[in-house]
């Protein structure tokens, strides 16, 4: 390791050995929000990185204990604001399974279409922001340009551009129109060459490869010890994808590949996400082709009550495994709601993974974890 070499050289030369504490954040360009990382540094080498989250903690879990099941629905889209659909999906799935609600097939298809569109838009934001961390400003604007098209599509059906609350217990709040479907088809056709362009312009760039290959190694074992999921664990060679291992909704009916790269470095995580956008496009395409006719909302009681007991439901959000654990005492209001968010677990390995790295490489590692700060703080 480079740090050890430097330290040995320092010791051999009798150079004084001093460390200092660098406060990265809570306001820093690379933390994309209000995350603070306390770094103990030896020159530009990180001896210890201690993330200090909580700057935008909102106590969603307490809010959950103060409102009934449907009233909590909008909260779920405000945890990870970039991947709101999938988070809402987890919550409606949990309630539907526990209450035994039927969801019409059309609603299931539309859920997958919107979730996957949301996943693409989330990955596009990550793509731009990650390149920004690496000092490349331009891809951000290209990515936002593409994302804008998704936001327009989703806005036309959900009415919001970021914190969607489109899913309902037992279905969706409204059906989509032909304009959305044709717009989505056009988007899929438009996005494929764009991904190709990103590959040529960005992925194959020698500077990018030098900066990412072999940097920020996170192996499957480390992911397991910290509970890291999503592109982080798939970039470490473990094909863990909730959509595949514990299928929900109509994912078993779709033909898609779970991208896995064994290297475990920043490049692997980068490539996993780039491939995932392609797979999401495939899923959207298939779901639109198979989209059945029919209602989008099943029969749902006016006031949802879950039988007493505890329930757990996980989905694959853009950043990894998002799970809700709910404890019901049979009343209208949840007794306890626990939100298990992927960014929280993914960031927890940062302290171990960043040890001995240089500052710019550690920031590349942090960027490749794709953190959304409200998702950590909840």
């Amino acid at each position: 390791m480079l740090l050890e070499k430097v330290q040995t050289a320092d010791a051999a030369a009798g150079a004084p050995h001093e460390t200092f504490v660098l406060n990265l954040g809570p306001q820093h360009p690379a933390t994309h929000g209000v995350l603070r990382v306390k770094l103990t540094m030896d020159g530009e080498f990180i001896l210890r990185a201690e993330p200090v989250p909580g700057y935008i903690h909102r106590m969603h879990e307490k809010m959950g204990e103060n409102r009934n099941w449907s009233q909590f629905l909008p909260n779920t889209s405000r945890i990870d604001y970039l991947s709101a659909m999938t988070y809402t999906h987890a919550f409606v799935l949990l309630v539907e399974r526990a209450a035994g609600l039927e969801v019409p097939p059309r609603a299931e298809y539309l859920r997958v279409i919107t979730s996957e569109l949301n996943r693409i838009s989330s990955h596009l934001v990550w793509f731009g922001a990650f390149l920004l961390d690496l000092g490349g400003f331009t891809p951000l604007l290209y990515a936002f340009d593409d994302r804008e098209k998704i936001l327009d599509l989703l806005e036309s059906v959900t009415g919001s551009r970021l914190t969607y609350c489109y899913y309902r217990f037992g279905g969706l709040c409204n059906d989509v129109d032909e304009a959305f479907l044709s717009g989505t088809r056009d988007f899929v056709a438009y996005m494929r060459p764009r991904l190709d362009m990103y590959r040529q312009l960005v992925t194959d760039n020698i500077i990018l490869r030098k900066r990412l290959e072999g940097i920020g190694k996170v192996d499957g074992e480390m992911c397991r010890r910290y509970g890291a999921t999503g592109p982080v664990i798939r970039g470490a060679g473990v094909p863990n994808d909730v959509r595949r291992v514990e299928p929900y909704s109509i994912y078993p009916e779709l033909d898609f590949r779970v991208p896995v790269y064994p290297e475990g470095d920043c490049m692997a995580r980068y490539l996993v996400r780039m491939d995932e956008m392609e797979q999401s496009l495939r899923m959207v395409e298939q779901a639109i082709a198979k989209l059945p006719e029919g209602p989008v909302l099943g029969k749902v009681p006016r006031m949802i009550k879950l039988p007493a007991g505890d329930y757990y439901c996980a989905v694959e959000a853009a950043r990894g495994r998002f799970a809700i654990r709910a404890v019901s005492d049979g009343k209208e209001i949840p007794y306890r709601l626990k939100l298990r968010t992927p960014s929280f677990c993914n960031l927890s390995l940062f302290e171990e993974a960043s040890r001995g790295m240089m500052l710019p490489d550690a920031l590349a590692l942090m960027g490749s974890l794709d953190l959304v700060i409200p998702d950590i703080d909840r």
Partner: protein
Amino acid sequence: MTLPEPFRLLAYLAGVMAFVGLNAAYLVWVERKGAARFQRRPGPTEVGPAGLLQPLADAAKLLSKQLLVPPDADRTLFRLAPVMVMAPALMCLATIPFGQALGARSLDLGLVMVFAFGSINVMAIMLGGWASRNKYAIISAARIVSQNVAYEIPMMLVVITLLMVTGTTNLQEIVEGQAGGFWRWNVFDLVANPLMPVTFVIYFICMLAETNRAPFDMAEAESELVAGAFTEYAGMGFGVFFMAEYANILVGCSLGAILFLGGWQSPFGVFSGVGWFLLKLYALVFTVVWVRWTFPRTQFYGLLNLSWKILIPVSLGILVLTSVMLKLF
């Protein structure tokens, strides 16, 4: 028309300062417009036609801001640093021949002088970073010193190679030696050294690194070090650093045009003049802008490896090759 010597010098001083000032201001505009074009957006449009008055508005804003000095900073050095960055860039331009008869001073040691003053720039940024008493600024100061030490060497080796070909350090004479058409330019002087285009590329890379431009903008590195050495500077203190960056790019690109691309010589051997020089200069400046908005930043050790492990051996090889070629032919 010839002015008496003191007036001529004063006129040039005013001219160079105006040129640098305008260029710095309008290169910002070019950079912003260029970046906007690369990024599929319009760029500044509001202030003046096509945003042309934007630099003036920016300058007015920066000038109206309070000059803050951090409480524990070294006040003298902190204030001195921006001046020390700006002044050498102005000095360097004094020897640059813009046209056949357009140059402040035609010094016999012009090239040496440009490099002598050029290296003060590093010290100034280092002092600015050090005097700020900010951890990010200190890291940046340490980075910029090692970066410049690393890149000064291949740059010098390249320039020495060129000196062996031209046989003079007078910039005016170097340009005159390239008269006659683009095949006479030093960059195409394959007889003296078949690797001359490579030499030019090395020069350009070193120039990017010396002026702290992306992908080698280690000192500023906004996603790592916030604003690096300039983190604590407010108002025009920051503005001067910013202008100096463009002034340095101007010097670097002028030198590139003079040493390799025939300066004010026309590529066809006729109609030589200041227009050609400016064309070449701005083509190089545009390339600098283009590179910045295309590539991500390199790693710091990647940057040093590039210099010590690739550029220095290659430029040494070129130096040896050139001397052998000159001896043989």
